[in-house]
């Protein structure tokens, strides 16, 4: 079975919105890793942000079929272009 892996990295504060988008597209599941830091074209996110009002990043992994990704592409792009963050797709084969 051909499957895709979608990696999303963005600010923790947008997590609820992104998960809503995932759920609306009926993803079979997702995994969230919080407390990620990093740098993007717009911002540096460091660990000390966690206690300020700013928060750090979340890394979300979704294994799903291409068509589900197609369904949610626009919504996710929209969120990420507004608030920052990255989204990449790669191939993944179930074990």
């Amino acid at each position: 079975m051909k499957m895709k892996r979608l990696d999303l990295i963005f600010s923790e504060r947008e997590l609820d919105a992104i998960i809503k988008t995932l759920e609306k597209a009926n993803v079979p599941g997702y995994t969230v890793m919080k407390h990620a830091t990093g740098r993007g074209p717009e911002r540096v996110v460091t660990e000390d942000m966690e206690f300020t009002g700013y928060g750090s990043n979340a890394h979300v992994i979704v294994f799903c079929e291409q068509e589900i990704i197609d369904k949610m592409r626009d919504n996710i792009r929209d969120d990420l272009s507004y608030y920052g963050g990255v989204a990449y797709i790669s191939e993944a084969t179930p074990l």
Partner: protein
Amino acid sequence: MEINPILQNVLAPPVLFFLIGAISVLFKSDLEIPAPLPKLFSLYLLLAIGFKGGIEIQRSGFTDQVLPTLSAAILMSLLIPLIGFLILRFKFDVFNSAAIAAAYGSISAVTFISAESFLESQKIAFDGFMVGALALMESPAIIVGLLLVKFAAPKNRPKSRKMHLSAILHESLLNGSVYLLLSSLIVGFLTASSNPSGIAKMEPFTGQLFYGAECFFLLDMGIVAAQRLPRLKNAGSFLIGFAIFMPLFNAFIGVFVARFLSLGPGNALLFVVLCASASYLAVPAAMRMTVPEAKSSYYISTTLGLTFPFNIVLGIPIYMSLVNTIIPLSPL
């Protein structure tokens, strides 16, 4: 102004631990307080200061001074961002100006706590209702900042989404730190009025432990502030000047308002410190959400990297001198 009170302030444990944290960054020590430990102390301090404030308010009752002082506090947090905005517009666009101005209109709870510790070490009395002012000054500046964007920004913000008033109010009033402070205040009030035995049982946690926890948190704040400082270089000298000048300016207005309100020296200092301090909790959270066009490093690096250390180390004793000079003058 004598040098003595500054030195005395610097030699108090909380400030010393702050400096230790800052110096550790300077010397590239690998001292580190990993997340989420700072959050633990941050939550604890908000809870404890709210709880104790609530008890004090219940005990002293609503004196004549309470209402005028709280009203003046809210007014100041509406006024300061407007002034700040006008100044910042010389150099920055509407978005950045509004976001930075909102930060300076809002407050820093840890600066307030440090001022309380300073007063205690100087044996100068102050009232619990000032915590009410702390709680009330966090949100209005956010609303002003967002309204400034709404009205002063170019009509078609390219990246913008519609800014609903409800979202603005939600961000400003239900931010975690505002909410915890306010609700702990209510818990303290209710406990004092209906369950006084609960106060004694809370005292070791919210009272005795407070000073030490403050020191530990300031150790972390020293690390954070010193890590932020170098990033200020990108901000340019205008913003660096602003980060020192604005608190002093706000303090100056604040001390005259305090005199007008006939506040005693303790309450006056706390009032001035609220005016002079800038937010790094509620405001960044709200601005990131609603004004993504503003560069976060501007409003975070200035408040955390410069204004906060300045207030903690030099500002508080300077403001005390200011209070001692202005307040005893013949009434306005």
